[in-house]
């Protein structure tokens, strides 16, 4: 009814394009997605921004990361750390909930996260992880919450979503080899995989971390597939074989 009234009101004043945009915003609001107070959130995701509703990374929401195989877990942790670093830039703290933690805190620094601003909650089992995650998501002083949860039911994810709608905390649920992939209330579902790194010919050693990012589900957005590299503290989306800005810069410097 409300939408219809808005529609009628808008019909009289604006063009068709504007009406559609206005209605989209209205629907987003009704679905519980509130635009972040500080305008658009850009975590350096460059070309991916078009995939998100309103061209803004959905903060105050639950993101689900699926790692079908054990080797994906490290890539997922790395990519998530890069996102968390962006959220923590304003000085916030992060909580990392897990029952089987493998994160090496000094390794987080490479992805821009200050390891001493991360509180690790090492719970005994999955049930405690769910409880602690919900408590953490309700805590509005946090920048982000990362939780390693294997099985996430619709009910649990709905509870998380309700918690973050109040607190505006961004939650990252890292699911390592989940058994069932039924839909959840999470706003997005991601899948991160390693890609062989690309280096200059003749250069020894592994290059920058390179990942394939698959956004399989995004509410009110456009799923897609991207390749990115983590270079000098930020994501780099340009296809490396085309431009390779970092290497060009390096070549310029070294001659």
């Amino acid at each position, binding site marked *: 009814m409300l939408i219809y009234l808005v529609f009628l009101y808008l019909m009289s004043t604006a063009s068709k394009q504007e009406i559609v945009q206005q209605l989209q915003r209205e629907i987003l609001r009704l679905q519980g997605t509130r635009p972040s107070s500080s305008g658009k959130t850009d975590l350096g995701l460059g070309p991916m921004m078009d995939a998100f509703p309103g061209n803004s990374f959905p903060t105050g929401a639950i993101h689900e990361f699926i790692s079908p195989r054990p080797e994906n877990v490290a890539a997922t942790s790395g990519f998530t750390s890069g996102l968390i670093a962006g959220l923590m830039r304003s*000085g916030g703290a992060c909580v990392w909930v897990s029952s089987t933690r493998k994160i090496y805190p*000094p*390794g987080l620094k490479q992805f821009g996260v200050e390891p001493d601003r*991360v509180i690790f909650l090492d719970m005994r089992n999955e049930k405690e992880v769910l409880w602690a995650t919900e408590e953490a998501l309700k805590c509005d002083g946090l920048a982000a919450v990362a939780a390693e949860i294997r099985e996430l039911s619709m009910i649990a994810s709905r509870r998380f979503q309700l918690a973050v709608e109040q607190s505006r905390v961004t939650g990252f649920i890292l699911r390592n080899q989940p058994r069932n992939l039924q839909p959840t209330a999470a706003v997005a579902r991601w899948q991160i995989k390693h890609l062989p*790194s690309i280096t200059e010919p003749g250069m020894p050693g*592994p290059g920058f*971390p390179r*990942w394939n990012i698959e956004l399989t589900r995004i509410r009110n957005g456009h799923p897609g597939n991207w390749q990115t590299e983590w270079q000098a503290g930020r994501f780099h989306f340009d296809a490396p074989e085309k431009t390779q800005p970092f290497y060009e810069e390096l070549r310029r410097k070294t001659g």
Partner: protein
Amino acid sequence: MPSRYLSLWFRHLKTDYTLIRRPALLNKPFVLASPDHGRMVITAVNPFAAKEGVSTGMAVADARVLIPGLEVLDDSPGLTGKLLRMLALWCIRYTPTVGVDQPDGLIMDISGCAHLWGGERAYLTQILNTLRGKGYDVRAAVADTIAAAWAVARYGNTTPLVEPGEHAKTLLHLPTAALKIDPAIESRLRRLGLDKIHRIAGMPRQSLLTRFGNQLLLRLDQAFGRADELIEPVVPVEVYSERLPCLEPIRTATGIGIALTRLLETLCQRLRQDGKGLRSAVFKGYRLDGRIVETSIGTHRATHHIAHLLRLFEENIATLEPDLGIEVFTLEALVVEDVAPLQPAMWSGTTGLQDNGLSELVDRITNKTGPRTIHRYLPAQHYWPERAMTATTSLDEIAADAWSVARPRPIHILSRPEPIIVTAPIPDYPPMLFIHKGQRHPITRAEGPERIEQEWWLSGGEHRDYYFVEDEQGVRFWIFRSGHYAGLNSYQWFLHGYFA
């Protein structure tokens, strides 16, 4: 722990104070006087004037006859009380419980304090030397009871340190005046020849009571430790404890919850007024059958936030068994600390680790699952990967060093390195392929070795040569060889972590 008391006696308190303020009076007879019924009466005499026969209560005119050049200074009323209070406050550095002992002394409860100064003798010497250095003529004694310490300080002529349990023996040889009794009773005792305590200590209580009244018996009991004597501390020790009696015994969880809320409200109100917050508290229920049920909580930061404390306690209410019912509830703050007044947020935003919400979250989780759940890491100056960080439970501890990013470090680490089988061309080259848990990982790129030596002052063992390798799929590993190359058949390669 046995109680120990220290009594200080300032023999010439007011004249000492005057002398400190007017050093010109040194080595001269002088008195303090105040008007009384139209004449000047001496209230304090310094030792030089006392030697010439001047005493308190004498008229100034009479004293001038004895010492023609006597200096007479005005006495201000209430000076003694003010001075004693000032000295008592100064003495708080030695013990928290210091009381004013009118008219010329201080009494201190030194139980458990003296060892901090290296024993009672050193403690006593320190106090006496400091006070004498300031210019006060002071005597002191340490004993098991307040009355015994008082008596030995003023009338004792051997050691001022009465060993624990020895006070009765020491007291017996002191004059009856050492009991701090009414001068009238004291003079009657003396007239009867009962000049020493040992002469009356063995008398039947009934006859002492009928002849000399209750006070003498009470003082005797207090001196020998049979009756309690109280110190009124100059700075009262605040006890944050609240009590709630119930008309009817409480048996339901709701009732307990209401009682808890009431107690928390009053306690937090008091804490807020004093600018304090509690770090740990215990909630007790006194049951009808005489048992006590209790539950306690702890917080990471001092707080007086009612809703938060209530949530912490609520988890434990179910564990309290009311049985027939609880009659009285008490709530006591065991550890109290100062809190900075809460600043209202001018803008909403994240405040990092200082955020109250975060410390409340940590409290809730600690109270539910125990303190070993929460981890925070600070950098440590070690290359050895397992020691490159130190765990802390504090949210306020600040990292002294920066995190190092000089060398590649994995994002995932295995708590125990897992053995792998490796094919490596020649001793110090990176491996070409490795097998982990039956899976082959052909290596396409590698970096290393990065040799990390054992810190011999911490532990022995082999050094490690770390390689940062990437396999065909782009998965990146951190593997190492333990020790020097030792031939083909040795298993000395391990997988230690994964890079992002």
